[in-house]
C-alpha cells in the first residue's frame, strides 16, 4: 500500500505542475476547433494549421477571393499595366536555355503601400519592411529553411523610392508577377534589424548584406505572444501548449478607414485532434466553428442527416478549394501494354462516371462543375469538350485498340464480365493506386466496378502518399518509377495563372537514372506542347499568353493522361445560435486563407 501512497503523492505533484490554464475571456468570443496543434508561425512551419493561424494576425500585399479576383490589402491598388504600376524594361536573357542572349522585356512592378498602417506593437509599416523581405530572399549562402522559390532567380533588384513606395524589377520575362515571386511586406523589419533587445540581427557585420540565419530569430521561437508582431485584426495574446491559441483585438488595427474593426473580441483556436470529438464539441457548444472536415456525405443511406448535418443550431456550408482529385494514367514503358495506346486511355475515361462520382463524393452539383483541363477554368479553351460517361463508346475504343470481349459476355445486365483480351490472349488487368485520404479508397472501389463493366480488371492499392506513391525515382516511388497504370491524387494548379506544371508535364520531367528527380509520372511527352507551355511561362502580354495556352491545352487533353474526378471542397460547420453564418460565407477563398475576412464576421443577432 506504500507504493499506492507514493503514486498518489506523485499524481498530486503532477497535478500541481500541470495546473495552469487560460484566463476567462470577455466580450464576444468565438472558439474554432483546430484539428492539429500548430508548430511555428508561418512561414517556417511545415504545418498547414500553423499557416492558417496567420489569417488572424497578418495580412498580405494583396489577396484573392472565391471568384479569383485579386484585391489590394497592404497596397493602395493592385499593380497592373493599365494603372501604370507595371512597366516593362528591356533585358537580354538566354530565354530558351540555348546559350544565346535575346532581347526581351522584364516587368517592373511598383508597390505603393497604404499610409498609416501600424504593426501590432505600434511601429509604422514602411517600405523598409518590404526591403527587409527582399534582402532575406536575396541573402547569399542562406543557412535557413526559408523557401525562396523563384524569387532569387527572377528578381533583379528592389528599390525603396520613399517610405511607402518600392519598385521591384525582374531580370527576365515574368508574367506571373502578381502570384509568384512577389514582394512581401509582412515581416517587421525592426524585429530583425539592429539590436531588437534580444541581441539578434540579420546583418551581423554591418556591411549591409544579410549573413545571419533567420531561423534563429526570436520572432520564430515558437508561439511566443510577446515576439509575434503582425498586421492584422488580431494579436496572439496567449499560446497554451496542447490546449489553444488565444487571439484578441489588435489595438493598432482599425485606425484607418481600410481596416475593418472586428465584431468578435476574442478568437480561440482550440486544439481537438480527433474528428469524432470535434463533432461532439460543436454539438454541445464547446466550440463555435469546425472546418476542414469530410462533409461530402450529408445523409445516410435512408436520407437522414448525419454528423454535422444532423446537429441542431449548426449550419454546414462549403467553398471551393484549389485541389482537384484527378485520374492519372501512365503511358510510359513500365505501364501495362494497353495503357500505351491513347484509345485505351480515352476509353477508360469514358468508362468512368466522373460526374456521378463527383456528385456522390463532393456533393450535388459538383459533377456539373468538374473541370475539363488541369489548368484553371478561365484558362481552358472554351471548345474543349468534357469526356462524358459513355460505356458503349468506351467499349468501342477498347475494341478498336485490339482489346476484345472474346466471350461476348459484356452487357448491361452483367456488371462483371470476364476481362477483355488482346490477340495474344493477355487479359486486361491494371494496377490502380491511390492514397488513404478519405474518400479516395471509396471512389477507387466505385471506379473498379465501372471499369469491370467494360471488361477491365483493376487491382486496387492504397498506399502512403509521401513515402510510397509520390517518392522520387531515386527512392523508388510508385509514380516516378512508372510502376502503375492508373492513379488518383491531386496536384494543385496556380489558380490565377495559365502556367502548366513544367515539372509534371514536359518531356524534360520524365524520370530516369539520368533524371532521378523527374516528376513527369505519366510519361506524356510532346515537343510542341513543351514549346507552347514554355511560351506561356515567358509571355508578358496576357492575351498572347492565353492564346498559347489555348493552343497547348488540346495537346495535353488529347493524350488523355489526366481527368478530373472530384473537386475538393472546404467544409465549415457553424453554431447558428451564436454567429451569423451569412457574414461568414465569404471567408472561403482559394488556397489556405480560410479566415482572411474574419474581421467581417458577426455574432448572431
Amino acid at each position, binding site marked *: 500500500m506504500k507504493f499506492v501512497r507514493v503514486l498518489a503523492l506523485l*499524481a498530486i505533484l503532477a497535478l500541481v505542475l500541470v495546473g495552469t490554464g487560460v*484566463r*476567462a475571456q470577455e466580450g464576444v468570443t468565438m472558439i474554432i476547433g483546430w484539428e492539429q496543434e500548430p508548430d511555428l508561425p508561418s512561414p517556417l512551419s511545415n504545418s498547414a494549421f500553423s499557416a492558417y493561424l496567420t489569417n488572424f494576425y497578418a495580412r498580405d500585399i494583396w489577396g484573392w477571393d472565391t471568384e479569383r479576383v485579386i484585391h489590394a490589402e497592404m497596397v493602395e491598388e493592385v499593380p497592373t499595366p493599365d494603372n501604370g504600376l507595371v512597366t516593362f524594361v528591356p533585358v537580354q536573357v538566354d530565354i530558351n536555355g540555348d546559350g544565346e542572349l535575346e532581347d526581351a522585356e522584364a516587368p517592373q512592378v511598383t508597390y505603393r503601400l497604404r499610409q498609416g498602417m501600424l504593426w501590432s506593437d505600434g511601429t509604422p509599416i514602411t517600405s523598409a519592411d518590404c526591403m527587409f523581405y527582399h534582402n532575406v530572399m536575396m541573402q547569399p549562402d542562406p543557412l535557413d529553411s526559408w523557401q525562396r522559390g523563384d524569387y532569387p532567380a527572377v528578381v533583379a533588384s528592389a528599390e525603396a523610392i520613399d517610405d511607402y513606395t518600392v519598385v521591384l524589377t525582374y531580370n527576365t520575362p515574368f508574367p506571373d508577377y502578381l502570384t509568384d515571386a512577389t514582394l512581401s511586406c509582412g515581416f517587421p523589419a525592426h524585429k530583425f534589424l539592429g539590436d531588437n533587445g534580444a541581441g539578434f540581427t540579420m546583418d551581423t557585420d554591418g556591411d549591409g548584406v544579410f549573413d545571419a540565419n533567420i531561423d534563429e530569430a526570436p520572432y520564430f521561437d515558437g508561439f511566443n505572444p510577446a515576439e509575434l508582431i503582425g498586421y492584422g485584426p488580431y494579436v496572439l495574446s496567449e499560446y497554451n501548449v496542447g490546449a489553444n491559441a488565444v487571439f484578441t483585438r489588435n489595438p493598432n488595427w482599425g485606425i484607418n478607414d481600410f481596416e475593418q474593426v472586428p465584431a468578435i473580441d476574442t478568437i480561440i483556436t482550440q486544439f481537438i485532434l480527433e474528428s469524432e470529438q470535434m463533432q461532439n464539441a460543436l454539438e454541445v457548444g*464547446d466550440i463555435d466553428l469546425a472546418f476542414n472536415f469530410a462533409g461530402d456525405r450529408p445523409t445516410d443511406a435512408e436520407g437522414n442527416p448525419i454528423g454535422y448535418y444532423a446537429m441542431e443550431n449548426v449550419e454546414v456550408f462549403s467553398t471551393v478549394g484549389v485541389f482537384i482529385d484527378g485520374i492519372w494514367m501512365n503511358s510510359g514503358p513500365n505501364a501495362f501494354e494497353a495503357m500505351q495506346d491513347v484509345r485505351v486511355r480515352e476509353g477508360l475515361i469514358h468508362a468512368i462516371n466522373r460526374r456521378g462520382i463527383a456528385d456522390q463524393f463532393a456533393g450535388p452539383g459538383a459533377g456539373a462543375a468538374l473541370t475539363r483541363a488541369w489548368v484553371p477554368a478561365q484558362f481552358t479553351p472554351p471548345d474543349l469538350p468534357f469526356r462524358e460517361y459513355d460505356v458503349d463508346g468506351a467499349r468501342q475504343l477498347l475494341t478498336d485498340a485490339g482489346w476484345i470481349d472474346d466471350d461476348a459476355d459484356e452487357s448491361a445486365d452483367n456488371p462483371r464480365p470476364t476481362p477483355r483480351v488482346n490477340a495474344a490472349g493477355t487479359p486486361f488487368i491494371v494496377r490502380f493506386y491511390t492514397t488513404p485520404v478519405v474518400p479516395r479508397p471509396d471512389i477507387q472501389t466505385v471506379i473498379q466496378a465501372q471499369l469491370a463493366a467494360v471488361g477491365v480488371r483493376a487491382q486496387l492499392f492504397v498506399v502512403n502518399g509521401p513515402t510510397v506513391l509520390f517518392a522520387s525515382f531515386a527512392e523508388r516511388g510508385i509514380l516516378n518509377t512508372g510502376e502503375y497504370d492508373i492513379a488518383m491524387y491531386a496536384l494543385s494548379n496556380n489558380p490565377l495563372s495559365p502556367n502548366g*506544371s513544367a515539372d509534371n508535364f514536359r518531356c524534360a520531367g520524365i524520370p530516369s537514372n539520368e533524371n532521378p528527380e523527374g516528376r513527369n509520372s505519366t510519361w506524356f511527352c510532346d515537343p510542341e506542347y513543351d514549346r507552347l507551355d514554355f511560351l506561356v511561362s515567358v509571355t508578358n502580354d496576357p492575351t498572347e499568353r492565353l492564346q498559347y495556352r489555348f493552343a497547348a491545352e488540346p495537346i495535353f487533353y488529347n493524350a488523355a493522361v489526366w481527368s478530373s474526378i472530384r473537386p475538393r471542397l472546404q467544409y465549415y460547420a457553424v453554431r447558428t445560435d451564436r454567429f451569423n453564418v451569412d457574414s461568414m460565407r465569404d471567408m472561403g477563398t482559394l488556397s489556405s486563407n480560410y479566415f482572411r475576412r474574419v474581421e467581417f464576421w458577426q455574432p448572431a443577432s
Partner: protein
Amino acid sequence: MGKYIIRRILQAIPLLLIIAVLTFVLLKTVGDPLQYLVEDPRVTEAERFRLRAVLGLNDPLPLQFVHWLIGDDWYLRDIDNDGEGDVYGERRGVLRGDFGESIRVRNRDAIEIIGEKLPNTLLLGITVYVVTITVSLAVGIFAATHPYSLADNIITSISFVFFSMPIYLVALIMIYIFAVQFRLAHDGGLDWLPYLPVQGMRPTRGATGTLAELAWHMVLPVFSLASISIAGYSRFVRASMLEVINSDYIRTAHAKGLSNRRITFLHALKNASLPLVTLVGLDVPFILGGAVVTEQIFSWDGMGLLFIRSLEALDAPVLILFTMMTAIAVVVMQLVTDVTYAWLDPRVRFS
C-alpha cells in the same frame, strides 16, 4: 545488493546501445522527413539540398549516427552542393547531453518538446495507476474472500466485459453518455444533471485555470483507461489471493485466532501481491510512452500524441529520445521490481 544493482546497470549499457542503433537505423531508413517539399513547386532543388544539409540528412547513415552520439560541431558540412565544406554543425551529441533538434518543430530541442509533454502524461498515467491498483486490490480481495458468491459472479462478468472491450470503444461510449447526452439534457432543461467535459485538459469556454477544472477533465480519460486495467488486475489479485488464503500458513493464522482483517491484509495480501508487483513492474514504464489512443481521443496533450505526430513527420530526434526513455524506464523498473520482490519475500536473495 549494491553489487547486484551495479552489475545490472552495467549490463544495461550494451542493451541500450543496441536499442539506440536499431531505432536510429529504422527511423532513418523508413522515409524522408522532407519528402513533402518535393511536392511543393515553390521549393527549388538547391533549397531542398540546403535544408537537408542543414539538418544533416545528406550525411551517410553511419556518420549521422556518430553525429547523434558525439555531435557534429567538429564536422564541416557542404550546404550549397559545391562539394566543399561550408559550415560546422551545431549539435553536441547525446553523450554530451544534446539529444538533437526536432525536425517537425523547428528551433526546438527534442528534449525540450518531450519535457513539455511528459508532465501531462505522468499526471494521467500515475492517476490511472493509483486508481487501478487501489480499486483492483479492493475488488480482487473482495472477490477472493467471497468466492462464487453472487457479487463475485457479477464482478467477474463486468471484468470480462471491460477486459474484452477496446479502449477507444470504452472512451467513445463514456463520452457519448456522460459528456454529450448529459450535456444536451442539461442544456435542455435538466439543470441538476452534471456532465463531464468532452475533451481537452481544460474548458474551452470560460476557463479559470483551477486544479478542480483539470481534475474534472481527467475523470473520463482516467476512467476509460483504468476500467480496462482494473478488469485485468482484479482477476490477477483474485486468483492470487484465492491461492494464498487456502495455504497452510493462513490456516495456521486462523487457528491462532487472528482476525480475518489482519490475516487478509497483513499475511495474505503481502504474498498475494507478488504477481501484481511483476505486472505493475512490466506496465509502469509504458506510462512514459503515454496512452496513444486515449490521448488522441481526449486531446490529452501528452507523450502518446507527441509520438503519433512525430511518427507522421518522421521526426527522428524526438522518436529516438522517446524510445530510449522508454527503454531506460523498462530497465530501471525491472531492477526496481527485483528489489521490491526481495522486500516482499525475504527468501529472495541476489547473487
